[in-house]
């Protein structure tokens, strides 16, 4: 078995517009290599070709040219989907089914039956925190709950590769934080994650490598830390530093012909603040 979870080579997708002599190039000459066990973020503005790329990798759309492989097998082969889990953007599952029925349905499609299916459904409902809502119809679920049941169905076949299209779109910060924790947990368990997003801060927190798409072309790709590092700058974060110490450091820097560009107090992120105050409030209630 190859060490590559996903390999995309020379991928181009051109959509022709019916009754017009026009066409739209959604993806052009894309090359992508995702190692087994890594979390890869595919970034790009709306219409940059992220979703089309994911759909081609999943065999839902056929490429105009190029090839895509999952664990060394042509991804247009249905058999490759045995080891893949997919969460589409803003998923709308069957509203008439309950949480349990939804997972049972997708489990059956993956060949699960009997006690294996029952146990797996229960395990996933626990994992995504929907045990209490398991007998409610999906029509009554909130957006965050739908996203979580979507994640659960993506995991039903214990996939080795999980493809997530905008997994936190429309979810509140707490739900978004839970999804992020789940992704971190997948990584710990050796599962490869390919996610598309335009929420850059989140991607920055969880992805090992990222690729940036613009107008269907991959314009940047590499390990996250390498891409975002500013080569000639260094940050030093201190705790309990006195004014005198700071002045000494500045003096040393000037002496060594370095420039202190900015000196400011460390701040938290708005997301962390939000999570802290809302969880404190919940605890008090």
């Amino acid at each position, binding site marked *: 078995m190859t060490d590559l979870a996903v390999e995309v080579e020379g991928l181009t997708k051109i959509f022709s517009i019916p009754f017009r002599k026009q066409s739209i190039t959604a993806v052009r000459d894309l090359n992508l290599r995702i190692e087994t066990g890594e979390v890869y973020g595919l970034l790009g503005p709306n219409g940059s070709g992220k979703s089309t790329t994911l*759909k081609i990798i999943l065999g839902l759309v056929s490429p105009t040219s190029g090839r895509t492989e999952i664990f060394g097998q042509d991804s247009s082969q249905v058999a490759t989907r045995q*080891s893949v889990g997919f969460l589409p953007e803003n998923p*709308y599952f069957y509203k008439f089914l309950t949480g349990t029925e939804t997972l049972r349905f997708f489990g*059956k499609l*993956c060949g*699960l039956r009997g006690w294996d299916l029952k146990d797996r459904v229960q395990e996933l409902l626990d994992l995504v925190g929907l045990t209490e809502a398991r007998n409610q119809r999906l029509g009554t679920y909130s957006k965050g709950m739908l996203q979580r049941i979507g994640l659960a169905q993506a995991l039903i*076949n214990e996939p*080795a590769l999980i493809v997530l299209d905008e997994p936190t779109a429309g979810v509140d910060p707490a739900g978004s934080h839970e999804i992020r924790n789940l992704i971190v947990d997948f990584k710990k368990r050796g599962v490869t994650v390919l996610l598309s997003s335009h929420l850059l801060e989140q991607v920055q927190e969880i992805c090992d490598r990222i690729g940036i798409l613009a107008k269907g072309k991959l314009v940047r790709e590499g390990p996250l830390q390498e891409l975002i590092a500013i080569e000639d700058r260094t940050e030093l974060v201190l705790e309990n530093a006195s004014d005198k110490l700071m002045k000494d450091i500045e003096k040393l820097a000037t002496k060594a012909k370095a420039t202190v560009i900015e000196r400011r107090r460390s701040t938290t992120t708005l997301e962390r603040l939000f999570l802290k105050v809302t969880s404190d409030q919940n605890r008090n209630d």
Partner: protein
Amino acid sequence: MTEQISTVAKYRRFSPWRVLALATNALVELARQKVFYVLLIFALILIGSSVLMARFAFQQEFQILKDVSLGAMSLFTSILAIVATARLIPQDLEDRTLYTILAKPVPRYEYILGKLFGALLLLAISIAVMAALFAAILYLREQSVLDQTWRQMRSGPPGQVDDALSTIRASGLNSDIFVGVTVIFLKASLLAALTLFISTFATTNIFTVVVMVVVYFIAHLQPVAREYWLQQAHAGWISRGFLALVALIFPDLQAFNLVDDIVAGVAIPMAIFTKTLLLGIFYIVIYTMAAIFVFYGKEL
């Protein structure tokens, strides 16, 4: 990687379990959208007509009851087949549920088969309930007429009584009614398969339903047009080829109209029934294959 997939069965190119899962899901979807309400309307028509017809002579009463019931059964199942099937694929596409399903190890032909079998299950249940209701009412009326006649004629000569009773039985519940019900199911299944085919390239449910209503009427008229054209002396191979194509696109629904004969008490020969059965299956297979072909080329 493979060690992780512990509880999941090995991939099979065709799995009846996956088709069954898709079919039962489609059935639950349709049932929870309350399409079975149509059965209530049927029951009301049946009960209403049996009450109204009770004042006629038994032959007329049974004939009208059969005519109304089989006619309503045929109409309702045709409507159900078109309206229920038309929404199955476009709805999945609109809700993006299709992406989630086809991202699982499900070949596209299994998805089409699952949806078709779901619609056929719905039709089978509906027709079974309607047929059971109809048979029960016809049987009760038959028993009541038999009882009444026997009481009136019991002092008469035994041969005459037997003749009268067997005349009543012949015009009551008999096996030809089940032949009629089977043909109605076959016609509805054909319409469901054709609707599913059209819905693979239609963009909305409305489009599919409108096209199917047009097809329904043309399909009832096409045998007449075909006979007319073929009787023309100048009908060459182009005309014949065109007519054959029309006959394939628009099924000959008149061939499934055995209800009139059944109501009139004409026995349906086995050969005619078998021919109709094979014709129905032929159309269903052709339309299903066409649906699979179009669906495989569809960009999602």
